[in-house]
């Protein structure tokens, strides 16, 4: 289907960059068809036997879980429930989380809120990769969990855990702010079970 010979476009439109972006999306679509299993490895490990390490673990996990900073990455409708949770009524700052960092470099938690489309998938994967360790992901809303309402659409990723490993799933469309707060408390429980003094792939 060759394009017609329209006049020299004085409108700036970068076809080469679009083509590379298109290839990136196709590449991610081929790569990410199977589910990435959730990083739950530390759930069933019993805590450290050594007394000093156990209390150091407790201190480190407490400090990590009590100030988890989310990335300011809103995709769709759930983003506005997340902002409602961050505003004065549902007050996410009770958990030390009211600072929504725009750049992933300074954030620990990526709340995927809204429908993830294939065109946005490589970008979201890049944001997740560029976050500092240890990082956690909350899949908020049924669109993030399984594609939700738009599951059999040609342009929607049926579930974010095909792209990035997810720690906590929050059902709802959109989930009420109380549900998001409950999900965050579950994430805190999960962080508190982490063991820190072993050499292993990232948490």
């Amino acid at each position, binding site marked *: 289907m060759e394009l017609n010979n329209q006049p020299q476009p004085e409108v700036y439109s970068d076809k080469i*960059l679009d083509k*590379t972006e298109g290839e990136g999306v196709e590449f991610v679509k081929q790569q990410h068809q199977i589910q990435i299993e959730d990083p739950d490895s530390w759930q069933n490990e019993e805590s450290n036997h050594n007394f000093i390490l156990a209390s*150091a673990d407790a201190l*480190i996990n407490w400090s990590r879980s009590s100030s988890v900073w989310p990335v300011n990455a809103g995709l769709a409708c759930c983003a506005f429930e997340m902002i409602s949770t961050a505003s004065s009524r549902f007050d996410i700052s009770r958990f030390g989380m009211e600072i929504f960092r725009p*750049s*992933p*470099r300074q954030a620990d938690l990526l709340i995927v809120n809204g429908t993830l489309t294939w065109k946005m998938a490589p*970008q*979201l*994967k*890049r*944001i997740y*990769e*560029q976050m500092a*360790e*240890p990082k956690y992901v909350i899949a908020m809303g049924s669109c993030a969990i399984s594609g939700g309402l738009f599951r059999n659409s040609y342009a929607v990723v049926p579930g974010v855990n095909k792209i990035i490993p997810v720690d906590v799933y929050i059902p709802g469309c959109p989930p009420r702010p109380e549900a998001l707060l409950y999900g965050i408390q579950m994430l805190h429980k999960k962080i508190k079970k982490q063991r*820190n*003094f*072993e*050499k292993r*792939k*990232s*948490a």
Partner: protein
Amino acid sequence: MLTDYTYVAYYLIAAFVFAGGAIGLPILLRYFHVVPRNPNAEKYNIYECGMETTGKTWIQFNFRYYFYALIFVTLDVMVVFLYPWAVQLKQLGATALVTILVFIFIIAIGYIYAWKKKALEWN
């Protein structure tokens, strides 16, 4: 005379201890595997709103930014010299006032010259 200022030494030590801790602690925590280490290519890429960066960034900027920086530095340095004078205003008396005015006048000449040469125009 000197003994009156020994507390400055404590500040110096505190500064070094703090600096050492700020640098040493992450290295120590990395050694104990508290800070996980998971290098990958994407992480060391430049973050630009989730997109790959395109084009080069070492480019020729407009010169007016540099003009502003120069003028700012001159005035800033002048202010640094005013501080000690301002603290001891009473003891130094009128002669110090005249010298400071001469000093300010010299810098003002450069500032007005730059102003007239339209260096501060922000087109």
